[in-house]
């Protein structure tokens, strides 16, 4: 191999233009070609007229001739001349028809005459072969074949359906990981006390964060373009779900007087159930995104116009979101009853919807809107907390009025619900416009 490669300078050049091996159902070698020819003749001209016979003979004499050139003038034509008794091959009066029959698939598939010419050359037909069909070159032979191929009436072969993405075990396992680790951490928090509880909490947070990163790095939730860094905002939103309600309540009543103890009791209680439910919902989220991708691919294959796809993709998107929210509700109920905590439905469901939509948009290449909306939601929550503390400054007591009145009417859940709910709604409206575009679901791995 090396000897050949190193020694042959033009290998690469030949490679540029290497014709493909024949793939058609037509005849490939001489014998099958003859077989096809003969059958064609037998069907087309059962009883040849005298005139036809004459032309057949002429053509077959042509075909039998051996092209031979040599410097010393002797021709290899002797080869065929020496065997006059060989039975003349039966060729129809219309040799091009036989050729078209042989390359039927090529002709039907061709988009222009050059396409046929390229295919014919790949099958070894040269200008000298074309001369036998009374054509000057392969191009004019291909033009005749293209013109004679019937094109009207029959339905062109349809587009092959796009291959839907497969569920792969690696991302399935990875999306289960954050939930499992989070559950382990919660168990650890319940079993430990004092400093070891602190260490458990710190280690648990770190491990769950890493698992989350790994879960969204591949599979249907993975972003395919450069993503904007949104980890801090998401981290803040989840931290608020964990600590925010307790802090808000404590702040409204003049606290907090102590750091959280890591339990649901005390002056600054932790709400672990929603966070655990969110971590567990990574797996359903990935499955929902996967289902969306698969169904969207099917719709893509089935739709003829871009508008059709947009129309059919809208209910799909809504169904995906509803499915996820259903799963999240079930998980919330489960964690709430297990941990004996009040399941904070409104704020967790809106947060879940916000996170899922942001991730879906990012995964399909729309990174700007999720980053903006996440920032807005996070800062709204931060502002609510900040106003409560700022109101303690002398003369600023009125700053706390809006948050305080919200707290009085709906309780501390109102703040995250409103922030995340508005964000989720905005993203949903955006997604209804962008995720229903065909280009958002275009397969990425095109052969180039």
């Amino acid at each position, binding site marked *: *191999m090396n000897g050949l490669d190193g*020694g042959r*300078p033009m290998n690469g050049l030949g490679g540029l233009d290497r014709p493909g091996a024949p793939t058609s159902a037509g005849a490939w070698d001489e014998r099958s070609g003859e077989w096809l020819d003969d059958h064609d003749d037998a069907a087309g001209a059962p009883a040849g007229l005298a005139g036809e016979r004459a032309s057949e003979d002429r053509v077959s004499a042509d075909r039998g001739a051996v092209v031979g050139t040599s410097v010393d003038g002797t021709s290899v034509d002797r080869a065929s001349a020496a065997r006059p008794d060989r039975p003349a091959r039966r060729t129809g009066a219309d040799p091009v028809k036989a050729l078209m029959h042989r390359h039927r698939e090529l002709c039907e598939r061709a*988009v222009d005459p*050059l396409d046929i*010419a390229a295919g014919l050359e790949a099958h070894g037909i040269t200008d000298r072969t074309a001369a036998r069909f009374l054509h000057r070159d392969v191009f004019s032979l291909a033009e005749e074949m293209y013109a004679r191929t019937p094109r009207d009436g029959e339905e062109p072969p349809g587009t*092959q359906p796009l291959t839907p993405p497969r569920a792969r075990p690696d991302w399935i396992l990875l999306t289960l990981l954050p939930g499992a680790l989070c559950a382990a951490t919660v168990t650890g928090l319940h079993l430990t006390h004092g400093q070891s509880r602190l260490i458990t909490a710190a280690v648990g947070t770190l491990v769950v964060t890493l698992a989350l990163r790994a879960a969204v790095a591949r599979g249907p939730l993975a972003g395919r*373009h450069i993503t904007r860094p949104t980890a801090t905002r998401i981290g803040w939103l989840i931290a608020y779900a964990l600590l925010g309600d307790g802090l808000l309540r404590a702040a409204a009543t003049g606290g907090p007087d102590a750091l959280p103890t890591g339990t649901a009791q005390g002056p600054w209680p932790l709400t672990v159930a929603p966070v655990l439910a969110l971590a567990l919902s990574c797996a359903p989220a990935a499955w929902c995104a996967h289902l969306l991708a698969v169904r969207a691919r099917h719709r893509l294959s089935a739709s003829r116009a871009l508008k059709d796809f947009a129309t059919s993709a809208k209910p799909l998107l809504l169904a995906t979101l509803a499915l996820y929210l259903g799963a999240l509700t079930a998980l919330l109920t489960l964690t709430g009853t297990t941990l004996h905590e009040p399941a904070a439905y409104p704020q967790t469901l809106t947060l879940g919807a916000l996170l899922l939509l942001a991730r879906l948009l990012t995964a399909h290449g729309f990174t700007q809107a999720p980053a903006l909306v996440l920032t807005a939601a996070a800062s709204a929550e931060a502002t609510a907390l900040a106003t409560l503390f700022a109101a303690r400054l002398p003369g600023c007591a009125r700053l706390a009025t809006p948050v305080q009145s919200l707290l009085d009417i709906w309780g501390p859940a109102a703040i995250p619900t409103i922030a995340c709910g508005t964000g989720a709604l905005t993203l949903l409206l955006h997604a209804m416009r962008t995720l229903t575009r065909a*280009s958002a679901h275009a397969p990425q791995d095109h052969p180039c």
Partner: protein
Amino acid sequence: MDNRPSRHRLVRIRSSRCEPPGERRLPLWEIGGVLVRIGLITEGGYPYVSGDARLWCDRLVRGLEQHEFDIYALSRTERQEDEGWVPLPAQVSRVRTAPMWAAEDDGAGYGRRARRRFAEHYGELAAVLCAGGLAEAPEDGSALEADRFGNALYGLAELARDEGGLVGALRSEAAVRALERACRSRGALRAAREARVPDLLTVAAQLEHALRPLSLDWYEDDGLGAADLCHATSGGPAALSGLLAHHFCDVPLLLTEYGVRLRTHYLAAPDASPAVRALLATFHGRLTAEAYSRAALITPGNGHARRWQERCGADRAKLRTVYPGMDASRFADVGESTDCADPDSLVWVGRVEPTKDLVSLLHAFAEVRKEETKARLRIVGTPAGSEGAAYLGHCKALAAQLFPDEAEGPHTVGDNPVSFEEIGDPELLSLADAYASGAVTVLSSVVEGFPIGLVEAMLCGRATVSTDVGAVVEVIGGTGLVVPPRNPRALAEACVALLRDPERRERLGAAARARALELFTVEQNVAAFHGIYLEIVSRTPVRRVVLDDSGDPLPFAVPAEAHVPGRWTERPHGLVARGGPARPQGAPVRATTIPATGGAR
């Protein structure tokens, strides 16, 4: 490294540049000599170690050391880029590379005006694609369509230069929608009207890939604009880069094609849907025609490529066939020696593939054995890929079936008259040894491009029997026997004729070697390109201001030449046979000068 002013944040395709190691060479000025600065554009080739045609480019660059080369390389795969470069000679002043396999889309959208510009140009492009290919459009309409295509292409290129972000835009919904609108419009191709949404997405993605050279930052005055001429070493993306350099910087373009790129596109994706194939065939056809019409000269590598180029609308006056050059020194010993190792053996050398039709060769050899009982056949070559390996196994089995082992006498060990060998075996240390080991070299392919093995056999001074495929007749030119492909009997008779006649064999071999030394050596290749470079430069006015030693502009340093765009004389009719695109008779219309709003509709 990006060389643009910092206010531009435009480059989407990373482009790197570097100077070769070693001292910077000062240009050699000779009396009467001309230093030409050549921008050599390659795609997936030189200077990458695994590139196509790297040896040819390397010999060209090394052979023309009086000139200066800037290499602009598009790499085809990440692996190719990782494998590194071949050592570069001192006349290569710099190398800039860009990946064709990765284009970053930063997600930043266009503003309103840029969006409108994009929609306008892309819509125009889509409309041209849906209107049909070169072969179908009527004569008069074709020129108009070609102009619309050029305007749309250069419009997109200018947009990429001004605003960047073309990669994202080409994949956006706006692009897909423009394609859909064009496909559904009146007068669209029948295949295009059948296009479904997946087809549109595929076409958009493929167009994005094909148009990646538009996003490069090469077309500046310190990039390709600084070159005296652009030499695109293949069609496709490299030619597109050359076209853009011609458009933006008025650098003349020399296009070399050893294999016809358009033909490769036709053969590339036989399974795609008709709409995708039709639209992409039109795109590549139009792009090729545009490159042919703008190129100063076109150098096909053989008559086959030349015929394709003529068919695609290349002007015959621009075509200069330059045969690829081969290193003749390796074969000098064998070629000049008169003794022959084995007067009864036939040799086949090459890569083992189904298209080489070794089966037919074995059947022919069976016929040869009936006439010449002492004949032997040596098949020298390695299989190409798994398919080739399977084919080689098949051939070995067939050889064992057809020819039983035989021995000289009752007491010697027998051997098969057909042997399968590889270069590197103890007996065959080099390629020349392989050719030297036989009296007659046989080529039995059914499909062939430019037959390198045949040229090597000619350089070795061997008589040859080959099948009439590809450029064989053009290469052999009467210095060997040619038989039709897939005709074992004719092949056998030609072989027997040569085996029986050593004198004729010698005569043919000497003639073949003389012909190969005349036509297919590196020297003729390099000399031909040298002449072509000078010819192009002599016809192109110098656009730069020449500075004197103190850095002041030197007036009248270059002669003022008349440079008239378009043609002086009317183009002779009938050169482009049967429906090839005809350029407009007058001066070409440039995209820059006209705001394209409603220009062509």
